[in-house]
């Protein structure tokens, strides 16, 4: 059995297309981790001229300018930032249009990550509209954290009107959020989109590697010999599954390590301590920092990936040829994204959590569900926060699909 495992691994790796996809996965991990920084821009004034910095230089300057708001987010910092905002508002009017660039860069920009959050939590409980900056008081700034809690409660009342259970889950989740928050400048929340996108691409590559696994034997007729050998039935199915899982897990670990090392080295490892509530929205329900979030997104991606692979294995064991198996698996993997874009609504929400790839994609991705949306699904009498379902359901599907694969392969009698 161990020999067969080694031989099967060798066989898979020897396949030209597999090598190609493996190489593509590694190359993409470097590429996807690197490009976000190339979009960073910063414009400043020098000798009356506007200059724009790009890439890592822009990032360095941004970090330097925002240094005053780095570290623990204290009410005092909030108040200091607010003061700087309001002082300049009086002098120049609306700071989006009328501020001189240099004033914006030195007085507003350093505090903006914090003040935006203060502004956000001061929203009117009924209309949801945020007030004018001028109307926020120093006392509001000093009570920032209390306002955060009220804001979440208000928000849930309006967003989950008919579902008191969801309101309650949200409030108790928010009670567990660690306060005070932390902020380290420089990190770009787009990074999660890139992480999500990369996981999505990795899923495709893994599907391309996995889908031929069983049906290529049917297609080439190699199957007849395999099936007449001692270990060629149930055990071969088992070994094939084990080999592809080994390979995918190794690939995942390698690629995600590359991705994380590159992206965090560029943006700064200290940014991993930034609280989600500052980077995304003060009302984000999870009490995690960016590092923990990166890991959680990775974990959800890992589960989704294994689930997709298991699904691909099952389709492969039941298909006549590689083309059918690959296209069918890809169609199913794209389904959540497409449904979400085209249909949206309740049906899409329920449907995608059932699919192995529900957590992978664009606007339906796990990190979106985690950070921007207050999505809850009602399953009978129980209400569950969607991101948990996006991890649990695909995880439960893994053993199911693998069992079906072994069964389909070993029972397949060639008629």
């Amino acid at each position, binding site marked *: 059995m161990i*020999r*067969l495992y*080694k*031989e*099967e691994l*060798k*066989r898979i790796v*020897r*396949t*030209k297309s597999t090598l190609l996809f493996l190489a593509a996965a590694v190359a993409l991990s470097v590429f996807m981790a690197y490009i976000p920084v190339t979009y960073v821009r910063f414009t400043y004034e020098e000798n009356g001229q506007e200059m724009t910095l790009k890439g890592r230089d822009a990032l360095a300057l941004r970090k330097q300018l925002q240094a005053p708001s780095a570290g623990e987010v204290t009410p005092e910092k909030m108040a200091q930032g607010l003061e700087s905002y309001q002082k300049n508002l009086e002098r120049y009017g609306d700071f989006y249009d009328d501020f001189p660039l240099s004033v914006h860069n030195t007085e507003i920009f350093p505090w903006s990550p914090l003040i935006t959050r203060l502004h956000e939590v001061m929203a009117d409980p009924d209309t949801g509209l945020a007030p004018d900056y001028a109307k926020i008081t120093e006392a509001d700034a000093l009570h920032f954290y209390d306002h955060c809690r009220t804001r979440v409660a208000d928000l849930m009342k309006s967003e989950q009107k008919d579902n008191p259970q969801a309101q309650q889950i949200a409030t108790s989740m928010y009670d567990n959020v660690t306060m005070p928050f932390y902020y380290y400048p420089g990190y770009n929340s787009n990074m999660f989109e890139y992480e999500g996108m990369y996981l999505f691409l990795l899923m495709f590559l893994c599907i391309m590697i996995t889908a031929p696994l069983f049906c290529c*034997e049917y*297609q*080439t*007729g*190699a199957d*007849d*010999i*395999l*099936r*007449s*050998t*001692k*270990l*060629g*039935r149930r*055990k*071969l199915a088992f070994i094939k599954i084990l080999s592809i899982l080994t390979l995918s897990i190794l690939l995942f670990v390698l690629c995600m390590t590359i991705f994380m090392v590159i992206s965090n080295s560029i943006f700064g490892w200290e940014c991993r301590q930034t609280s989600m509530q500052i980077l995304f929205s003060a009302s984000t329900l999870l009490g995690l920092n960016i590092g923990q979030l990166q890991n959680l997104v990775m974990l959800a991606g890992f589960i989704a990936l294994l689930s997709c692979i298991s699904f691909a294995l099952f389709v492969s064991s039941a298909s006549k040829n590689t083309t059918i198996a690959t296209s069918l698996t890809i169609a199913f993997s794209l389904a959540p994204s497409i449904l979400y874009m085209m249909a949206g609504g309740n049906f899409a929400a329920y449907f995608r959590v059932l699919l192995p790839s529900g957590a992978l994609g664009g606007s339906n991705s796990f990190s979106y569900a985690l950070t921007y949306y207050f999505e809850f699904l009602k399953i009978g009498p129980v209400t569950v926060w969607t991101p948990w379902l996006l991890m649990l359901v695909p995880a439960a599907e893994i053993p199911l699909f693998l069992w079906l694969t072994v069964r389909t392969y070993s029972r397949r*009698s*060639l*008629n």
Partner: protein
Amino acid sequence: MEIILEHVTKHFKDKSNKNNPVKKAVENVNLHLTPGVWGLLGANGSGKTTLMRMVCGIMKPTSGCIRYDGIDIESLDEAYRDKIGYLPQEFGFYPEFTVQQYLEYISALKGLSDDLAKERINELLAKVSLEEVRRKKIIKLSGGMKRRVGIAQALLNDPEFLVLDEPTSGLDPAERVRFRNLLSEFAKDRIVLISTHIVSDIEYIATQNAIMKNGEILHTGTTQELVARIHGKVFQATIPQQELPMWESAPGIQIVNLRNEEDGRLCLRYLGKQADIPDAVPQNPTLEDLYLYLK
């Protein structure tokens, strides 16, 4: 050791044929296979491959059962497959594999240890004279060489029961001779089942023959026993060229071979009665004569 087939039947659904949607590929086959080389003779489509796949447990019979030493092969499962070697009529190789890599892979599937596999592979590559191409990719080999790789993989686990579906197709005469020798050495205390429609291939090596037609086994027996059935029915005669159409259409005569003589006349070998053609001479019947006689 014995393999017994009881009422083995295989029906396929034939969707293309509306009048007769069931294709009877193998029909009520009873066979008692004992050690020795068994030749399975039959025309194209007579059901040889289907029968062999059932015997190897790759395909389930529609009805009937196959027993190895009294036990149903389905319940023996792995233990049975451990004892067989199978060369399919057609099969695929992994395009990236060399001969050596392929044999290593199959030996792992057959549960051989590393050392044993190495030893067996070297031994078999020598026997099928493929040592020189062992590092070549299989898809780059000639048809006959591929066939020999197939024969080698079937022999890897030193099977007690060897099933070869048209093993000699594509082999050149020298390799055919080597193959026969390999088999007759191998077949002591083992069962070897070979299918072919090239009669001369098994005439010399098969100790027992089974003749298949339309899914049924018509006759079994040694070559002598089978040939005895047409004793006194095979003749040879020499005729003028222009008489050929006449004899071809004559009732009761089946021409099995034709040869041009130097003087422009034709030498006929035929099945029928001596009196049919003037000056006919009796011949020793061969399995090929029988085969054609039964067709």
